[in-house]
């Protein structure tokens, strides 16, 4: 994968679920497909062989339904969690749920000819289902589910009108958060705060709200009102710097906030030409952000000016704020982007037309940051 050349991987069905595999040394991404046809959905594990630039995949069946959201466990590389939806023709109703699976093997690169043919034939293998959690009200729509960053047994499930923290061993509701009675704005997504343990940030219409999950009720730990002029679509916490988070929304903006002072974003760019569906901080270099938008682009943006520290003013000097690179290999809306957890300069972007693109940060920016 040389500079400017991205590697494209195509799937058969529409896709809007992507996750990097944590706790792994390989550049590995998991993709979930979205198809309403029964028994056609799959989870693809894609691995980029760094030395050769070859792409290897392994396909697993996901017959429980179409995948809306997928998260690999931060605690165990083989474990993953999908948020899925299935249609029952008899009741003509959709039901959503969250399932946790365990991959039979972490290996993707074929070891022998059998493996190779299996992969070439894209024969889907089985995963071990650990548990399935369903909402208390069956018709409730689940937006996403997130692993607790430390507690292996906890997950946070964001639903239309509530967030529930569940214990995956028992499936019990540990805590539940419902929005304040008056506005009844629906939740669209959410995430655990990596620094303040047990804080869960939720996107509610144009606002960001963070709840302490150990407390009952609806009081927020902090909130950013009107983070976007239109619906807020995604958020990501700065992995290295407390209080900083990035948000993306339907006003095509990428905003970075210090939530201690949430009046104005500390950084704001409007480089996309449609809604921004996702934003991710680079885990190693907090000044690099990648965003995906329904304008069919992934943009690599530098936010160096707000990453300067007192004693080191270097960052903003070597790197100018703004778009570093626009990745235009997608033909349809890009709903997911993820950095690799194993290699700081590689990321994957996934568009609705089932195209995964693995790209790199251009080399000259990499050298600028490193040197």
């Amino acid at each position, binding site marked *: 994968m040389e500079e400017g050349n991205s590697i494209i991987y*195509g799937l058969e069905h*529409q896709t809007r679920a992507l996750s990097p595999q944590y706790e792994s040394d390989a550049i590995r991404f998991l993709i979930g497909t979205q198809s*309403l046809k029964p028994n056609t959905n799959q989870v693809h594990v894609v691995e980029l062989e760094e030395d050769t630039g070859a792409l290897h995949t392994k396909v697993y069946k996901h017959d429980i339904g179409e995948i809306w959201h997928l998260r690999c466990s931060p605690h165990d590389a083989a474990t993953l969690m999908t948020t899925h*939806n299935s*249609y029952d*023709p008899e009741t*003509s*109703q*959709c039901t959503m749920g969250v399932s946790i699976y365990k991959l039979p093997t972490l290996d993707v690169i074929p070891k022998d000819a059998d493996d190779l043919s299996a992969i070439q034939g894209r024969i889907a293998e089985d995963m071990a289902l650990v548990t399935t959690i369903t909402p208390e009200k069956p018709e409730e729509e689940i937006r996403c589910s997130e692993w607790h960053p430390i507690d292996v047994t906890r997950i946070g499930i964001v639903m239309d009108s509530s967030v529930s923290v569940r214990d995956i061993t028992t499936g019990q509701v540990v805590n539940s958060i419902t929005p304040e009675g008056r506005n009844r704005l629906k939740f669209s997504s959410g995430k655990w705060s990596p620094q303040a343990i047990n804080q869960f940030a939720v996107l509610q219409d144009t606002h960001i709200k963070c709840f302490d999950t150990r407390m009952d009720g609806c009081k927020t730990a902090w909130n950013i009102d009107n983070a976007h*002029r*239109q619906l807020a679509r995604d958020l990501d916490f700065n992995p290295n710097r407390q209080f900083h988070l990035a948000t993306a929304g339907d006003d*095509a903006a990428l905003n970075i906030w210090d939530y201690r002072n949430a009046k104005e974003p500390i950084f704001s760019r*409007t480089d*996309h*030409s*449609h*809604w921004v569906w996702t934003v991710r901080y680079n885990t190693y270099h907090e000044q690099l952000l990648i965003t995906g938008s*329904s*304008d*069919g682009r992934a943009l690599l943006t530098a936010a160096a000016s707000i990453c300067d520290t007192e004693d080191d003013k270097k960052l903003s000097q070597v790197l100018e704020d703004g778009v570093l690179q626009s990745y235009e290999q997608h*033909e*349809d*809306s890009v709903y997911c982007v993820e950095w690799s957890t194993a290699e700081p300069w590689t990321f994957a972007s996934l568009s*609705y*037309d089932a*195209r995964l693109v693995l790209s790199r940060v251009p080399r000259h920016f990499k050298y600028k940051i490193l040197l």
Partner: protein
Amino acid sequence: MSDPDTNKQDNENPLDIDGSSFNSEMYLDCLMKCATLRQVMDKEAEVITQSQFLQSEMQTLVYENYNKFISATETVRKMRSDFQIMQEEMNKLSENINKITTFSSNISETLKESGNNVNRLCSTRQLLDKLQFLFLLPTQLNKAIQEGRYSDAVHDYTHAQKVLQKYGDQPSFQSIQSECSEIIYDLKKSLREKLLTPDTTASELAESVGLLRQLQESDSSLQDIFLNCAESRLEQHLKSLSSMVNSTDILEWVEKCNGAILADLGIVITCYHDMFQDKENTNLPDFADKVMSQVFHLFEDVVRRPENIGTEILIRGLDKFFRKLQAMSEIISSDGVSNKALDVVIQCINHKATMQHQTIQIQFKENLMRVRQSLATKGTENADLKDILNSLQVYLMQKIQASLLDLMAFLQNNLSFGLKPWCAKGVADSCWLVISETLINLSDMVKTLSVMQTSNNIPFELLLILAKLCLEIQENGVTILHNHLTRLLEEASPGLSIDKKDTNNIMVNLSTAAQSALDSEVVFIGQTAAQMLRVSVLARDWLRAPEPRGPRAVCRRVVETLASADSAASQLFPTNFKPSSDSSRRTIWSRAPSSFSPINRLFSERIEVFSPAGADRAALSNGALKVALKALVECVRLRTFSRHGLQQLQVDVHFLQQRLSCMGNDERLLNALLEDALSSAQLRCVDPQLMEPSIVDIICERG
């Protein structure tokens, strides 16, 4: 008988009887030879008569001369006897004169002594006079001082001073001197006190200092005292002036200022120069600058007062002030003051210009508020946007032109600064400032309004109007104003060359403002429609949708929203594009789900949803359509459809396609987005079966 030759010869001619070389022999010979006897006879008779005549004549002569000789001899004899007498007389005289000389020397010797005595007496008398003056001096001085004739006193004292110094060691003089010194000391003291009393006039002050100077006060201390006194006096003036700032108008103030402080300062400076000529200006410039800067400061305050903003009064006040300042600058003879005077004028002009463009801005804002309210109350249908645009534009242009004309008053040629090139330049700059500031303020205001649009609920018509206003001014207004200004300047001060102003910056500002207003309008309309579609798609249960009976109500609302924006835009941004009527007949033939692949998209252009809007009705409508329909696509993808749900969407899409194709001019764009929406719905459908197009047509028409 004889020609000149013979005459000449006659001179020597021995034949000429009257000649000196007459030769009687030759004559006789000649006569005998050539004459007849008769002729000889005649000749003889003639010669005899002539000889007789000559004889008698000679005798008379002899007698006469003899008489004379005898009388002369007698006279000589008489003279000889007379001279003897004279000699005796002369001897007597010289004797007498000798006597006189000795007498006179005797007398003078005797008189010498008494003359010396008289001289001595005279000088003694003079001395005594002086002494008397000295002895009387203290009383004289006192008297003079009491009568207030300080200058006489000082004059007397300075005269006496020399003598006193000379004979100061004599005891009697010492007492006089000490007495005088005391009196003079008192005088000095009283003079100083007088200097320090605040109500002394400047001329009195000058006089006092002059006297003190004559009394040999050291210069520097005198200068200090003088300046201190002057300063305290001027400070009083300043105080009274500053108290007047808020209570009088500029004319009165300037008059007072000119009459009081500037006049006094002039006197002070002139006196200073007169008295301390020898010293080169050491303290004076500082002093003058200090005072003047305070005056200027006050003047600025005066100019700032809102009551003094009227052009006429301001200019008259400024004129008076400037005239005085020019006079002052000659007195002070420092460049600082004259430069400062120019600055004051320029500042005044600038201030006036600033006030004007601020006023224009405020008034324009108020106007805009009215427009906004009327748009909000009237509703969009009845409003004649073109009318509003025209009135705003005319208003703005007239206001600017009026203020330019107003500023030209500074160039009236009866003003002291009216025809100066620097003033003309200042006016030109200020005029340009008015133009550029007003237009840039306009741009900024439009930009702010555009940004605020979502939060402040500004009518989109206003955005259209403002965008058009900016564009119109950018296209024509700037040039018109620039030419207007050039013409005004040409009239006001002919022959003055004014550098061409940079219009580019204004143009860029205006066009970006127009762009942002247009973008904001497009996004607003698009988002309004998008929001309707989003809510309607997300809230509906598409799985349990009944069989479609017509397009959903939301589609009509979307069409209405887009159409009202389109018609508003058509008022201001007419386009030549005529929608072809049969294009709406075309039905979307949806792609089969299988064709939903990257390949299809490869051949269609990428649609930039939030992109800069063109200043054109069709482009504006295109922009809004894109925003609305792309939102529809994205929302559809989040839902799951039953067969009826899909068919309902098919009807909706068909309806939208029919109604929206008359807006905008990019049918491909419209169709691509609607196709995208429908094919996305097909993908999200559990039983993807579309309706017969003919039925869709019927349903749509029925609805």
